[in-house]
């Protein structure tokens, strides 16, 4: 039988850093919300959508329709679909659509992965802006106008909130909670010029690709790499919270595991690749955002190990005691309950939970998303352990140098 002894300084350090991060976010929110205003552009630059497609016959039509349904001059929009060696009817669907929309260009190539497909499309694009869009991701009509209003001299890319389309299964619903929560914090990071991510839909200045090259073809999370590259050149990425793209999220554990391990591996790989960004000279990205990501990874891993050890230890002990003849009994009395509550870890934990509920209130208000409180609690109590597990697998893959798509 063994006992799990977690150093008290470690627990208090994690609590303190988490508290600091939460309060910092809150201050950023308070400081920036008063001056936030929703603006749409009155200038409409030319933009080419690059849609890498691999076996996307199910969604590609909806994706393309959503692009042509945006509130933006249609003659300023062009689409390049890069058929990345699909074995289904993706090319056929796109060819049919091209008859309807003249501004679609279908490029066929052998399957070499998303990054190569993107670069293939970018190389054939002539417009000032390039919008990178996943084949299963649909735009809201007001998105482009809002996106182009955010570009300034230092802004090299604009990205936006992502919302799951599929929200039927529990695993999909919990991802809806996750995507909504992260979108709020991404916006806050964007407000302090420290958003290190450019996922499913991002508009880039084509110049950036010309000067600094295309997507890293050997990278599992080429979008994260590109975001870090943008910052490494002292440019920034902006974020839209009040409009979004909809995408298909994994609807079973296996798919989710695969996706998250890829993300986790990519995060570790790119943090290592761009370790020089952990520096004051990269502003809040180096001082806050990246250290926070690293802290999150460490906490998730610790959470996993501590939970696993505590659970195994309790299980073994219970079995041992039952064999000795112990009969479990449950009694609650006020004294015991108050003594339990008097533990500073519990007090600070409850305070943290209260703070997170306050954030939830703000997020619901800001995003207009309907988040069920029950789902939110499950997200905190259960899903977080799943994320910790994914992080562990990612770390193992990273340390054993076995990347996997």
């Amino acid at each position, binding site marked *: 039988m063994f006992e799990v002894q977690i150093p008290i300084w470690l627990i208090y350090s994690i609590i303190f850093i988490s*508290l600091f991060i939460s309060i910092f976010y809150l201050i950023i929110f308070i400081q920036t919300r008063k001056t936030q205003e929703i603006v749409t552009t009155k200038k409409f630059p030319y933009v080419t959508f690059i849609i890498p497609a691999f076996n996307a016959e199910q969604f590609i039509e909806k994706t393309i329709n959503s692009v042509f349904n945006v509130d933006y001059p249609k003659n300023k929009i062009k689409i390049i679909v890069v058929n990345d060696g699909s074995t289904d009817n993706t090319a056929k669907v796109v060819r049919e659509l091209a008859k309807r929309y003249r501004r679609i260009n279908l490029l066929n190539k052998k399957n070499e992965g998303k990054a190569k497909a993107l670069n293939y499309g970018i190389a054939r694009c002539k417009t000032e802006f390039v919008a990178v869009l996943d084949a299963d991701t649909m735009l809201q009509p007001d998105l482009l106008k809002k996106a182009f209003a955010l570009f300034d001299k230092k802004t090299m890319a604009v990205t936006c909130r992502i919302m799951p389309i599929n929200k039927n299964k529990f695993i999909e619903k919990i991802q809806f909670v996750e995507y909504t929560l992260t979108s709020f914090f991404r916006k806050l990071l964007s407000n302090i010029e420290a958003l290190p991510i450019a996922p499913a839909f991002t508009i880039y200045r084509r110049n950036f690709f010309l000067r600094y090259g295309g997507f890293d073809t050997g990278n599992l999370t080429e979008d994260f790499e590109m975001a870090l590259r943008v910052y490494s050149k002292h440019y920034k990425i902006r974020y839209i919270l009040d409009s979004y793209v909809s995408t298909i999220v994994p609807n079973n554990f296996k798919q989710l595991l695969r996706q998250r391990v890829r993300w986790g591996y990519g995060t570790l790989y790119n943090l290592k690749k761009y370790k020089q960004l952990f520096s004051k000279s990269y502003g809040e990205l180096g001082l806050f955002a990246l250290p926070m990501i690293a802290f999150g990874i460490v906490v998730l891993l610790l959470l996993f190990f501590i939970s696993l050890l505590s659970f195994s230890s309790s299980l073994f002990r219970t079995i041992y005691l039952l064999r000795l003849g112990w009969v479990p009994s449950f009694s609650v009395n006020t004294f015991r309950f108050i003594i339990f509550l008097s533990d500073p870890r519990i007090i600070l934990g409850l305070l943290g939970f209260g703070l997170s509920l306050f954030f939830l209130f703000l997020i619901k208000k800001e995003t207009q998303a309907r988040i069920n409180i029950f789902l939110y609690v499950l997200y905190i109590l259960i899903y977080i352990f799943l994320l910790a597990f994914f992080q562990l697998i990612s770390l193992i893959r990273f340390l054993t140098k076995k990347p996997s798509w």
Partner: protein
Amino acid sequence: MKKRIKGEKKNRGVAVSYIAAFSTAILVFVLGIWLGNYIASSKSLELQRTQEKLISRFFGLELRNEMVKYQDICALSWGDIWKDKVEMGQKVINLETRLGKENPDVLQEKEVYELIEIKVILLLREIRERCKENFTTILYFYTNKKNDPKGDWRESENQGYVLDSIGAAHNMKGKSTPVYIFAFDINIENPVINYLKNLYNITRVPALVINEHTYTGLMTKNEIEKILEK
């Protein structure tokens, strides 16, 4: 292209945000720790009050006995005393969990609690002798200290769980002969408690004294039940 960067956080503002966040986090952190300790110390006072209440009750009982010369001990409703003793024991355990087993205040309160336990044992003896009541007492000696040469603290703790189950099973109304359990930390240094340890020859823990016989080492529920059946 219209700029809308008004809402952007500028660098100088961010520096202030760091300081504000850090200061607030320290304030909240310290307040949380202070509040926890304040509640724990107020509960510690509550335990002291319970102890004082029980000591007063014993003192009153002794005085009454003096006055009536042991005439009515069999009529004594001692259930309240037992209830207070059990409650006090639980409070000591809870405080021990919260403040630590080595905390001087906890050790002090535990010593008082164990002396009160001895008072209850003496009272029970008297009731058994004078009133022909049928019950069993178990004295349970344990250690809390890690690497204690007198015995393993984990085994002591496990013995405590087993005894809890025995106590719960025997003290249900209408069930078999009541069993009254008294726990003693072998490391509490007090002349009376030391006398008790010497009396029953307690050198290793966990150890049980059941009806005046000493049993050393961890015992299962079945083993204890067999002794109780004799």
